[in-house]
């Protein structure tokens, strides 16, 4: 096998999307910088009692988000978590999870390069997401600290709302990134600015 220049093992990471921020009255859509992300699966019994692994809070209800320092976790199902951390920590996170769960049945997969994240922020953010996402994104239906897998138009996304502020994080697969970005930009353009 031909070795890459520089490092033999590290794949060169190409950005999936280089789009400038979309700024309209009431909303700003930005592509977020690269991060390390992992998909963690645990068996039913271990998932029910899991508390914290490698600095990630796992003991949150289904469809909730938690953040410790720079490491965040989103519980997408009864035994599935999406974990995220700083881009440079990927190797360390993987090693720490492996060490913490040694001897236990678990599945941890590095999905950093699969994911693209967007920030949708502003007073109209929920309305813009609702152009393609059927969830109730009001503070009652989707309060601060919510996170769930859902859909936007025809693409699957993970939607997170870290706090009560109207700042949403949208994660999608890199092959959907152009579509998701165009969909959000189109919705933002059509959204009338409120007086």
């Amino acid at each position, binding site marked *: 096998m031909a070795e890459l220049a520089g490092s033999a093992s590290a794949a060169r990471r190409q950005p999936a999307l280089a789009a400038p921020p979309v700024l309209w009255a009431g909303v700003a859509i930005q592509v977020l910088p690269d991060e390390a992300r992992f998909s963690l699966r645990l068996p039913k019994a271990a998932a029910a009692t899991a508390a914290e692994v490698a600095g990630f809070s796992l003991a949150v209800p289904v469809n909730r988000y938690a953040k410790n320092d720079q490491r965040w976790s989103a519980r*997408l*199902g009864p035994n599935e978590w999406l974990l995220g951390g700083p881009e440079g920590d990927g190797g360390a996170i993987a090693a720490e999870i492996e060490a913490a769960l040694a001897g236990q049945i678990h599945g941890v997969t590095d999905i950093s390069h699969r994911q693209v994240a967007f920030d949708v922020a502003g007073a109209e953010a929920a309305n813009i997401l609702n152009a393609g996402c059927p969830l109730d994104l009001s503070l009652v239906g989707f309060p601060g600290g919510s996170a769930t897998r859902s859909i936007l138009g025809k693409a699957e996304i993970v939607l997170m709302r870290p706090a009560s502020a109207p700042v949403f994080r949208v994660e999608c697969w890199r092959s959907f990134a152009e579509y998701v970005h165009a969909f959000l930009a189109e919705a933002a353009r059509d959204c009338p600015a409120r007086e």
Partner: protein
Amino acid sequence: MLLIDCPYCGPRPEVEFRCGGEAHIARPAQPADMDDKAWAEFLFIRSNPKGVHAERWIHQHGCQRWFNALRDTYTDAFIETYEMGTKPSRLPDGRTTR
């Protein structure tokens, strides 16, 4: 939009779900002992009632878990959803189980 009550996520819009056909069909313990007619019935013949029907559903664009649901095929009303491996509080014919 029709809301379906996922046992893990709560009420969610129907476009996040996929239906997996009739529920509670046990695979025969000894397929080799069955004749072709019985095997074909197990594979292909389903009840298709007009009324309450037990179905498998998956929350595909959500928690991605399979669960069972009692749905009225005439009104499209979801009567009950329950986890895999459990029984509904009533059977499709209206009798209660618990």
